[in-house]
């Protein structure tokens, strides 16, 4: 069995509201190995996004342990977390989150700016990735000049530009039609074949079926965890 890239144990997350602490994640434990392709499902409000944000080092759990790539995340300081978000993780948002005033090339190369990469290499790599997602001709366009599906592909190119080992995608196809969604999912499948660990959140069963493992949340807990393709880990967990 491969060494886990993500190891979460007894994770709790409470939001502070006017009515007092509101528990959203309740004792979540999960282990994901390098190279896995995981779909997280569950009804609205079950805590999927909250969980993803914690995995993406954007948010902190109220309690519990999160180990990423062998590092206890709670012990890392702010520059170190920024470094992880920059190098280890590529985050894809439901709402794309592109910089509206920058053209596509600048959007895709932005993570490289924070990695300190030189201008020429930045532009070469961004160009190459835009071509890979089929947008090579749009480098000088602004995000509002292209379609939603294209914007999501730009966001994926941006997530990939620093060659992360982990892609986290929170409802990447939530705003897209089924044809465009298929394109995006095919892209993720290719990336997974290249060895990148992928975790995606989705409401749709057919989207989830692209993944090799399905995790289901309900009311802040994991209620289901299964593999579509046989894996040694699955055999261990659920002896048939």
């Amino acid at each position, binding site marked *: 069995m491969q060494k886990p890239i993500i190891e979460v144990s007894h994770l709790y997350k409470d939001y502070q509201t006017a009515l007092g602490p509101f528990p959203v994640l309740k004792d979540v434990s999960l282990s994901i190995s390098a190279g896995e392709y995981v779909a997280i499902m569950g009804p609205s409000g079950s805590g999927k996004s909250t969980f993803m944000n914690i995995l993406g080092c954007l948010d902190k759990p109220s309690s519990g342990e999160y180990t990423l790539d062998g590092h206890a995340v709670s012990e890392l300081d702010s520059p170190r977390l920024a470094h992880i*978000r920059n190098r280890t993780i590529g985050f894809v948002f439901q709402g794309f989150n592109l910089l509206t005033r920058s053209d596509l090339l600048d959007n895709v190369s932005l993570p490289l700016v924070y990695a300190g990469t030189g201008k020429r290499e930045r532009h070469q790599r961004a160009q190459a990735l835009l071509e890979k997602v089929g947008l090579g001709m749009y480098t000088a366009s602004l995000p509002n000049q292209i379609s939603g599906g294209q914007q999501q592909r730009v966001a994926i190119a941006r997530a990939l530009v620093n060659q992360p080992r982990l892609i986290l995608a929170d409802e990447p196809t939530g705003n897209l039609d089924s044809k465009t969604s298929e394109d995006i999912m095919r892209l993720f499948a290719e990336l997974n074949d290249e060895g990148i660990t992928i975790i995606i959140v989705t409401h749709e069963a057919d989207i989830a079926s692209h993944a090799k493992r399905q995790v289901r949340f309900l009311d802040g807990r994991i209620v289901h965890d299964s593999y579509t393709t046989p894996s040694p880990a699955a055999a261990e967990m659920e002896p048939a």
Partner: protein
Amino acid sequence: MFGAMLGEAWHAMGANRLRTFLTMLGMVIGVSAVVLMMAIGQGAQESVKQSINAMGSNLFIVLSGSRTTSGARLGGGNAASLTVQDGEAIARLEGVKAVAPVSMGNAQVIFGSSNWATSIIGTTPDYLDVRGWNLTEGYSFSDSDIRSATRVALVGKTVVENLFADSDPVGKTIRIKQAPFVVLGVLESKGQSLDGRDQDDTIIVPLTTAQRKLFGAQFPDSVRMLMVQAESPQTMTMAENGMNSLLRQRHKLREDDEDDFFVRNLTAAAKSAAETTRTMSLLLGAIASVSLLVGGIGIMNIMLVSVTERTREIGIRMAIGARERDIMQQFLLEAIMISVAGCLIGLFLGIGGALLVNLLTGASIVISSNAAITAFAVAATVGVFFGFYPARKAARMNPIEALRYQ
């Protein structure tokens, strides 16, 4: 990395041009006010300094008349109490270098078909030394001219300009109050005096000639004033005390009589005039600096608005790996760029304004690189100082909260 950030800052400034311009305007006004005020203030100081240099050093004037307790002079120079002999006695005092008796008046001067009203100074050859006044042409009169009261004259530049269009004045005969005078020399230009008079609008003649042939003094040896030069700044006090007791003695004043003369330390008066202009120009600069401060607060205000508006952008940047430091740099850079750009424009406007003032009013101005450098440094500092708080506010944002901001 820095190049990329500079480009982005430029972009951000361009995204809302009107707002950037209005923010800059505060800086522009502040810097141009400072530059203008400093140029005018330093110009004033410079012209005072020139007047002082032109005046001659370590100078006193002694006038006849007395001083009231309030310090105002009563009948200065009118009572005929000072004499040429008083001056000769003062010249022998310890610490005194030279004394020039002066009698003055105004007269109409004619050369050919031109005529000009000017002031006439009747004095001895020492006068030029005491005032540190040189001739650009010709030569001065001598003691023998004093003895024989010859009709010779030294003319100032303004007089030359008004009487002798192109011709060389030396050797020409002019008429002062109808009497013919031969021009011996031309005085170098001294410019304005501290009280704003044109010192070049004058003619110098031998004292005796002035008294006997121009002004017709009632008392042959009395003079209006004595100009006294001390040997050095150190001997000024000694000379002043010596003069006071000597004149009291010579004028046979009793213990409780008031002085019938008045000694004025011109050098000290000049110093206080210089001090006054210095204070004035500092004050002007200080007032102008307040507008710089206001400009800085304007920048801070807009940066705070900008940080709030761009919360989501900050969240995105953090999500893809921007450190707090990077965000901080980005916003600081924007603040500095606005303030430095405003400063540059202000610099040009300020210098332009100063040149305009010079052109329109003739007031002397000094544009020093110092003022420019100071204004620039201040602008950069203002940018950092007032940009710091908004930038830190941006950098301290929590990434997930920033991303959720609508």
